């Protein structure tokens, strides 16, 4: 075992069983294109010696594998119970919707933002919470949301 066997994508492939590599392969495929296209699924299937249908079946089970393209910033607002109790959930979604002009499940015409409601982010103690791409934002207030969106609006 060598430390360099640990891949930056977060998964070290340890077992010769090709099937066990599927989730990590899908992550790698998705990392490159931001979305799992039918071509990417076919490529993964070929590389692992699996049927494309099997690869699709597995990919479609998991919400983090995306078949539809999203905006550059995917805003995922927690819709869970604790966030709701802390004035989050609906209010945060509505607030962001009003600011960027799209509802949950939509993408802004410039492709910058997509908005989604998601399940509990394990941030209930720091509710309300949301995630944008790989970053978690907690204890949200209108002021912090404004600051975050402004910064992302300005990113070139």
């Amino acid at each position, binding site marked *: *075992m060598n*430390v360099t066997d*640990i891949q930056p994508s*977060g*998964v*070290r*492939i*340890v*077992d010769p*069983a*090709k*099937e*066990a*590599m*599927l*989730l*990590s392969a*899908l*992550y790698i495929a998705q990392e490159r294109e931001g979305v799992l296209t039918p071509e990417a699924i076919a490529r993964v299937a070929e590389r692992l010696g699996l049927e494309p249908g099997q690869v699709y*079946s*597995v990919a479609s*089970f*998991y*919400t*983090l*594998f995306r078949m539809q393209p999203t905006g550059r910033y995917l805003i995922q607002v927690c*819709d*869970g*119970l*604790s966030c*709701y*109790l*802390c004035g989050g*959930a609906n209010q945060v979604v509505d607030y962001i919707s009003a600011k960027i002009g799209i509802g949950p499940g939509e993408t802004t015409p410039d492709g910058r933002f997509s908005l989604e409601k998601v*399940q*509990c*982010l*394990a*941030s*209930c*103690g*720091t*509710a309300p919470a949301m*995630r944008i791409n*790989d*970053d*978690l934002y907690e204890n949200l207030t209108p002021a912090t949301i404004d600051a975050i969106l402004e910064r992302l609006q300005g990113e070139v």
Partner: protein
Amino acid sequence: MTPWQPVLLSNVNRPNSERITTYMAHGGYEALRKALNMAPAAVIAEVKASGLRGRGGAGFPTGVKWGFIAQDAPVKYLAVNTDEGEPGTFKDRLIVERDPHSILEGVIISAYAVGAHRAFVYIRGEFFLGVKRWIKAIADAYQHGFLGKDILGSGFDLDVSVHRGAGAYICGEETAMIESLEGKRGEPRLKPPYPAQIGMWDQPTIVQNVETLANIRHIIGRGAAWYASIGTEQSKGPKIFCVSGHVNRPGNYELPLGTPLREIIYEHAGGVRMGRRIKAIIPGGVSTPILPPDKLDVPMAFETLAAAGSALGTGAIVVMDETTDMVEAIRRITSFFVHESCGICVPCRIGGVRLLETLETIGAGKGTLADLERLDYLSRSISGLTFCPMGTGMCEPIASGINLFRSEFDARVAA
């Protein structure tokens, strides 16, 4: 009584707490040295004697589970459950991000005890920082000789790898997790056989929650007798309680099992916001039955919560004050389960959708008494009849919620 000094969370607030150097400067990996000088059977006996029960929700005695592993099996695996997804629960993320070595030390000791030479860390795909922390911790442990071949000269070998889930609550269920680790859809397997008998790639596999594993170093380090002196008759040791909802100081509080719910909410979590009264409490994550405020004095332990009509679950306490719309709270919980149903069994897949539709109708003020009866009928057709415990968990808040807050439901439906 002197206040409880955190054991599991003793490191998390130190600067650079996640680093191996910080961990080792405060006694880290000493328990591993001790364990490697014991016979594996003695380590199992110690964990058995400690009374440790799983912290992932089911509360199964850990040492007993280890005893199920066939001694003569040529290959055995350990799987580390970092999939934390039960709404209200945020303890595992804290340990993984701030003190990953305290789990890893438990992983190595546990693997040594059961004779596993390969451990798989399964982590919730959304835990981006947690993934990094796990990978770094494992890499550093290799460098220090705590992993790999001939660990600390003991002759014991162990390799650990990290595997990201990809967004599926059900993969926290141990057999679904094994399916996912094998690269499949995360659909649960029928039990028995239990993973300790037939697990990953059909080999005996011990699945353990990360908080459970974080206890192991303390049990070995300080001894089972010390550990068993903490807690109640059937619930030993410290527990991390995640408190959220309408409290002044939400957060993770480590306390001995058996600490009264009232003390956790009012002393540790600072009481209810704006001095309001409590209407309902979820004591162990959203799969556990809702409790009314007259149960506030229940000790937070497996046996006492069962007697009170609920369960310890993950120890995730969600507090709802008198202003809470219970129909909406229960609808929201149900919508979680419906979203997360894996779909292999009909009661959970279809029954869940029907439950949610009915709750939505009632919530919108369009329901009738027949809808309330439908909720009752549906829960009885789901609970206990699903392929895995998730479908049954889905009914717990509904059944208990309607029972406790019947008048609120009645007020929402037309006669």
